[in-house]
């Protein structure tokens, strides 16, 4: 009993403890780290990856993966910038960016759901497609953006909070509601848990899968607009490796790559672990090369921990139920 519940505590709060530990260590090593202004910087840095990770969380819970988001960010950003230069209307530019994101997501979803192609392959292909189309469209040159609205999107503050952070918070609130309180959310978990059982329960699995990837595309579109606004230009190579950071945040947050388990609250923590780590190592003057190494090690450690906890849990499987053990297994 004691061991199981300890494992359960570690399982539920392990990553939060890890985040606190990283914050504590960096704070001791460099007092400048622990300040309101630095936390605002961290949050602004986390905003884009956090936004992508919100969509990615739903995709991974549904048992899939979306490798296309980085390329999608670049493509949607460049078309948004292009639309701004062509029409001078920031609203149209934002809509163009979101529409591209959604369209790429929809294509992913349709291919994954109806011909039942593996999501890894489909989104790998659309990643390459987006990257290529972006280079074709821009000729490889950055597109500068000059708009007061975009300045505000990227660098503005509301109540002292950076606007991109507010957007991220809004997205997390929405995704939380979606995953916990709606039929859609239920289906995302159920499909990830056992797609065939869902199909045989009369659920339109294809429709929900398409929707999941489309929503991931939407978060990529939002991230693209914010990134373009922050850089005041659309870079054809923007978003390189973003898909991996988003996946890392989701996995660090305790969502299982095999689907059906996990949740958006864990992803917040996962995204912050990555953000705090990068910021902390920067402040400690660690070379960016080593920062990548550190990120890799943290991900390995986290997944290993998760694996060990799951192994202790499976040892007691197949044993008749008795109240205590059952309670320890309860989640949700």
């Amino acid at each position, binding site marked *: 009993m004691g061991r199981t519940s300890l494992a359960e505590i570690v399982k539920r709060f392990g990553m939060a403890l890890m985040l606190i530990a990283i914050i504590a260590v960096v704070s001791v090593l460099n007092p400048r780290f622990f300040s309101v202004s630095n936390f605002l910087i961290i949050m602004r840095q986390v905003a884009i990856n956090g936004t992508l990770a919100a969509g990615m969380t739903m995709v991974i819970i549904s048992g899939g993966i979306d490798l296309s988001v980085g390329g999608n960010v670049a493509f949607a950003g460049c078309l948004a910038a292009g639309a701004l230069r062509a029409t001078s209307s920031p609203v149209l530019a934002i809509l163009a960016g979101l529409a591209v994101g959604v369209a790429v997501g929809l294509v992913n979803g349709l291919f994954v759901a109806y011909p039942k192609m593996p999501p890894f392959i489909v989104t790998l292909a659309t990643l390459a497609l987006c990257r290529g189309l972006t280079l074709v469209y821009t000729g490889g040159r950055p597109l500068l953006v000059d708009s007061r609205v975009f300045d505000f999107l990227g660098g503005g503050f509301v109540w002292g909070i950076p606007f991109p952070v507010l957007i991220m918070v809004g997205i997390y609130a929405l995704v939380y509601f979606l995953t916990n309180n709606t*039929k859609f959310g239920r289906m995302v978990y159920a499909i990830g848990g*056992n797609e065939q059982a869902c199909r*045989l*329960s*009369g659920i339109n699995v294809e429709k929900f899968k398409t929707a999941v990837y489309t929503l991931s595309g939407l978060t990529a579109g939002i991230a693209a607009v914010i990134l373009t606004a922050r850089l005041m230009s659309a870079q054809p190579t923007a978003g390189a490796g973003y898909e991996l950071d988003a996946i890392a945040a989701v996995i660090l947050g305790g969502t299982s790559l095999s689907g059906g388990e996990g949740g958006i609250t864990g992803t917040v923590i996962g995204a912050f672990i990555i953000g705090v780590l990068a910021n902390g190592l920067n402040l400690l003057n660690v070379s960016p090369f080593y920062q990548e190494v550190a990120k890799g090690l943290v991900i390995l450690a986290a997944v290993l921990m998760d694996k060990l906890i799951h192994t202790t849990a499976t040892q007691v499987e197949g044993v008749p*139920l008795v109240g205590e053990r*059952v309670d*320890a297994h309860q*989640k*949700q």
Partner: protein
Amino acid sequence: MSNNSLRAGGLRQSRARLQQDSKANQPILEMVGITKRFPGVLALDSVDFRLMRGEVHAIVGENGAGKSTLIKILAGAHQRDAGTVYLDGRPVSISSPADAARLGISVIYQEFTLVPAMTVAENILLSDLPVRRGGMLDKRAIVSCAKDVLDDLGVDIPVTATVRSLRVAEQQIVEIAKALSRKARIIVMDEPTAALSEMEVARLFSIIHSMVEQGVSIIYISHKLDEVFRIADTITVLRDGRRVSTTPTSLLTLTKERIVHEMVGRDLGNMFPKEEVAPGDVVLEVKNLRLPGGPSPISFSVRAGEIVGVVGLMGAGQIRLARALFGLERIAGGEVKIRGKAADLRSPLSAVHAGIGLVTENRKEEGLVLPLSVARNITLGSLDHVSTLGVVSQRKERAVVDEKVAELGIKTPSIRQLVRNLSGGNQQKVVLAKWLTVDPDVIVLCEPTRGIDVGAKVEIYRLMGLMAWQGKAILLISSEVPEVVAMSDRVLVMHSGSVVCDLPREEVSQESVMQYATGGNALGSHIVS
């Protein structure tokens, strides 16, 4: 059937004689005082178990009685907390599956451990593939060694075929051959006949006999008591982690009823609580339904409150019929009407819309979402009933789930318990609860009591009665003929893809059903052309 058991009895006697002249009555394996504790539960409480050389020893008990824990300790998958294991009279320590294999103990689980893409021969010799000098595989030796093993078993399986291309029964034989090639002296078989047809069971039993004659000892775990009586020399009953009894099957006083009583710890009363429900209007009407490759069209109907059994040998088409009614199998022609309306059966989605529900034969793969809670599994197909504009009302959902849990008697500490942690019987009740919540007109039950213990079976039968009372039209497809005979108002018998007869309750008996199912139709009066 009686023929079969006579023959098995004869073989048993000759084997008994054989045991007497060789190293007779020497235990090959003794497990003494085995105790295993899991957090919050005592899974095994000082259990003694003794396996004689060349014996088929069955272990029976309800789910959770400790059978699988005992086996896992023997296989090195679990470590015992107390007790000793003796092999050939010497204490041994089995701390990993590799230890068990080295000691000649092999377990054949329900999930096979074969590599589907490799050939039969390669699978049989996988742990010790013969190589020539220089490390090259000796393909000729692989083929001939594997052939030898299979010949010893008296079976004819092409050794160069890939395992993927074999049927389940043949894969199981490959698994057995693999164990023998590793010089296994003790083979544990966990529910070996769960997916086998009657003929395949007979073949498996003759393989077991030939292994026993070669001096291999078998531990046989099964829920099917008929088979246990046919094959086993000795039966050990476990209940709640304790050994209740160990009795030779040759003892005349040993009856199935006594074993069931010992397993359950109480009298079950009536095994088949059949409710008498006056049938209503015709709900399901199948007219000239043609399955691709099916020899003749199928027609039948089911009324409200009626349970219609469908029986046939494995592969006679009853599972295909069920899957066709649920949009999982293409229909080549004919018509299906539900309450007089033509039903569109292109996909499960449209079948559910038309008013059909299907309880599949494999609840873990197709019936349940294991990492989700009891509540979420129950409302899986009916979330629209408890939500407005896509937002689920927790309060309404809870009310529906609480009602079903009470109505069906689902034993769970909480409706938020993960369904994966429930026993097989309770999991099956969750599947039934899911469909009762969807509320279709027709419920097709495929093997509804497969792999669940005796007590839970009776509960499932009671729930069939409940569904009949609620006016559902029920199609019961099962390979357990006794349950079909006892629970059905009418029985359709299928033989190689066609419905060969439609027997009214008065004419249904185990004998009549089996006669038609095996292709004999001498009784002849109710043949449907």
